């Protein structure tokens, strides 16, 4: 790898940049923009759910012909739900989270000058960018954006006559997703190769920060599962455009029998969830890695049970591949297969519980410094536990029968995966912002942002469990067609008001982020008094990360408050003293 400094033009520095730190910022800001779109969408459809049929000027402003006189149509409701899910899961919590922090932290924390292949890394971002552009473009096609749910189950997603969004909107959705998968694969391959090959001297696997362990397992999950989604998507493209019958059989459209026979919609679900479930952990593991690092640093205490933490990441990663069937208990899948998936799914609770206990044990007898990053990390532990527990109900097939596809599920996965991952992402941004931009984010705005977001988050998703236990299905444009759901408007109003508060709270974050980039106070070299390698690099970014030699590593990253040390942290680059035990 070259250590020489080439002359940089604007284009090579900010646009087609191969430096991992710049690529990480590109991922973050693109992710934030996409996140804003998805967040706005959710507030829009929440308005419809709390006040069905009521006219809102804001809907007409943003949705135009889709919301004549300020009331959205059922089709656009489904489109908003679909695109909200797609963007949040893939563009924000996969690319935005993993793309940002894997890129920033892998070279810096393992002591490498850059990713193994800067060029592939750049391609990874630009495929993601193209994919985002296509996804946003798909919102504006004449027949409307994809609206078959983010899981795009055929036949609904395959036949435009069934729902208008399955016309051009779905085509562009698939194009965008193919580009996205290419991006995810390029990124993940790079992360794996870099972590295996480019660790600095002394950076043994037992000295890797947990962030890197999490990114490593995440990348492996991505490499193994995204190609399956790609094949599922390609077969769907064939069914849609070339008359094949992979997923279609025995269908009648407008009185005409289609010629497709022999296909199975269930096949698509198997392929989709073979990605879809690992995807949950692709989203979650980086967040858990980030918070492990932050909770340890800000408790001024080693992470409790490092080995167990690594083992549980590996166990979760492995198990995530053999549980996909729990999304399909009531599809008519063989009940025996259901039994197998009950067993494997519930096993995941064990490593998850271990992680939760270890977080608590890390806080115990610590010296907790409440930075905004720390607050979000603690909130993650709370949402991880709260959301994880309702998973026990859903993983158990007999109990799943009655809450499957209800708001109980919506509440569950938003808390355990949505909130946890986004909290991990916020925590990461607050914590590593000084490393990204050399500036500090304002802590007061951070506190305001945190407390409003946290309160609003539970306000949105907790009441959903009650809707679910009442049997309210998800993806309903309105609940007014069933007398059994009468009187539940109050719940929906609580949820919507909380959602609006939560959305407004994000203004503090965005403002803080952009203000601090330009006008924030300068950061010191190691503002959080952290042990990991990234804080030994100069504040001002440079190609190659460190001037001169890459620092060697002599200890694990969690030597906080070690007895006998002068300060309460010891950088990984400090050699062990004579007679000092490693830990």
């Amino acid at each position, binding site marked *: 790898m070259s250590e020489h400094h080439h002359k940089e033009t604007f284009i090579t520095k900010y646009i087609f940049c191969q430096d991992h730190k710049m690529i990480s910022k590109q991922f973050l800001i693109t992710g934030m923009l996409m996140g804003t779109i998805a967040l706005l969408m959710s507030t829009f459809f929440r308005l419809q759910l709390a006040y069905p049929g009521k006219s809102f000027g804001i809907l007409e402003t943003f949705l135009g012909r889709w919301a004549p006189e300020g009331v959205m149509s059922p089709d656009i409701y489904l489109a908003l739900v679909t695109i909200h899910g797609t963007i949040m899961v893939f563009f924000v919590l996969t690319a935005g989270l993993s793309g940002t922090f894997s890129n920033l932290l892998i070279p810096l924390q393992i002591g490498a000058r850059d990713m193994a292949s800067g060029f592939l890394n750049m391609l990874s971002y630009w495929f993601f960018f193209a994919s985002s552009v296509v996804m946003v473009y798909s919102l504006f096609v004449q027949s409307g954006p994809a609206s078959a749910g983010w899981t795009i189950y055929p036949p609904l997603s395959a036949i435009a006559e069934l729902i208008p969004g399955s016309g051009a909107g779905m085509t562009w959705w698939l194009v965008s997703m193919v580009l996205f998968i290419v991006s995810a694969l390029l990124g993940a391959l790079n992360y794996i190769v870099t972590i295996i090959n480019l660790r600095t001297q002394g950076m043994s696997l037992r000295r890797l920060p947990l962030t890197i362990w999490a990114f490593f397992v995440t990348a492996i999950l991505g490499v193994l599962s995204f190609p399956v989604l790609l094949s599922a998507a390609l077969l769907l493209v064939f069914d849609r455009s070339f008359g094949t019958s992979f997923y279609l059989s025995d269908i009648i459209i407008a009185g005409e029998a289609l010629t497709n026979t022999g296909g199975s919609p269930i096949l698509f679900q198997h392929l989709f969830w073979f990605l879809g479930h690992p995807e949950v952990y692709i989203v979650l593991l980086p967040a858990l890695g980030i918070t492990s690092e932050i909770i340890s640093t800000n408790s001024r205490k080693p992470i409790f049970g490092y080995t167990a933490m690594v083992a549980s990441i590996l166990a979760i990663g492995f198990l995530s591949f053999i549980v996909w069937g729990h999304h399909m208990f009531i599809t008519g899948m063989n009940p025996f297969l259901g039994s197998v998936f009950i067993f494997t799914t519930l096993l995941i609770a064990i490593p998850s519980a271990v992680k939760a206990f270890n977080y608590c044990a890390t806080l115990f007898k610590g010296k907790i410094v409440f930075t905004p990053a720390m*607050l979000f990390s603690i909130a993650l532990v709370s949402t991880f536990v709260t959301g994880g527990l309702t998973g026990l109900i859903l993983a158990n097939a007999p109990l799943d029968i009655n809450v499957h596809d209800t708001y109980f599920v919506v509440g569950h996965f938003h808390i355990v995966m949505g909130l946890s991952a986004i909290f991990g992402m916020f925590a990461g941004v607050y914590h590593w912002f000084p490393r990204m931009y050399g500036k500090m984010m304002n802590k007061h705005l951070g506190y305001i942002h945190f407390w409003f977001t946290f309160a609003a988050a539970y306000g949105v998703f907790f009441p959903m469990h009650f809707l679910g236990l009442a049997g309210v299905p998800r993806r309903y444009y309105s609940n007014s067609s069933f007398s059994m759901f009468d009187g539940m408007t109050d719940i929906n109003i609580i949820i919507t008001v909380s959602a609006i508060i939560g959305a407004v709270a994000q203004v503090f974050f965005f403002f803080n982020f952009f203000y601090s980039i330009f006008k924030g106070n300068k950061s010191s070299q190691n503002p959080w008094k952290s042990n990991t390698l990234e804080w030994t690099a100069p504040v001002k970014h440079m190609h190659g990360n460190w001037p001169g030699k890459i620092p060697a590593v002599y200890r694990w990253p969690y030597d906080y408050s070690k007895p006998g040390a002068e300060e309460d942290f010891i950088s990984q680059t400090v050699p062990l003293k004579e007679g000092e035990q490693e830990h």
Partner: protein
Amino acid sequence: MITKIFTLLIIVLFLVALTQVIRIFQLTGKIKGYDINETTDYDNNLNGILSIIFSILFFAFCVYQYLEFKKFILPESASFHGIFIDKMNNLSLIAITVVFVIMNALIFYLSYKYRSKKETKASFVTHNNKLELIWTILPGIVLTVYILYGLNVWSQVMHPSEEDPMLIEIYGQQFSWTARYAGEDNLLGESHYTLVNNKNVLGVDSKDVNSNDDIIVRELHIPIDEPIMLKFRSQDALHSAYLPHFRVQMNCVPGLETSFMFIPIKTTKQMRIELKDESFDYVLLCNKICGSSHFNMQMKVIVETREEYNEWIGQQPKFKEINL
């Protein structure tokens, strides 16, 4: 238009104000010579106390929701297998509520209790094998019990022992349900999707003698205390036949026949008395996204005595009679 400009103006002014406030903070810090973003003991106390307040408000909010929304939770199961599901569901909900309260209380309490203070020092504990073994094995044991219990209920629900259930086919299409009764022979006539037309909405094969006494209706009547085998088909998209009061749900898949067997144990009348709601009716609704009117795809379900059922079914025309 004026409101839009006005809203925009307010947003801009708000951001300008925010900028100024932050700058004042920054400047004071600069003059007095401290870093405003350094976390102080004041911050640690404030956030520690806030986390206690938050946890209290959060639990209060949970209790409020329980008291206020309890009435919406589905009534006790109206089917036999549902009793076992309900029992397990209630036990599980109680158990997870207990763990939820303990763990969340612990998280917020620890955050408060160990907030950084000048005089404290964190203790250097890296791991504790004994403790970790306990909290790995303990969830392991609890889960083993839970899994075995779950598998047991699952096989009861999926492999009921009753013989000769009454056959009813449920057919889903955008955006309505149709039911076909097997008639006196309790055999459904063959059907094929290419046979569907305006008169023969389910594509029943009239050449199959079993179809002669089939009865096609848009309302589901079922006799109480008798095993009912529902067979599901779909015409277009995926649908999911969801009978929340009976704890029954199964997807309807084009090209694949699925089924679910259950025994209703409460008539509509009994349920009306139980719920003190004269207008109550059981309902079958669609629970898999299927298009624009997905939110209004339903069929009325009536559970009645055998006599009432016989009377009703006797009035319905047979397939042979309408498909001449």
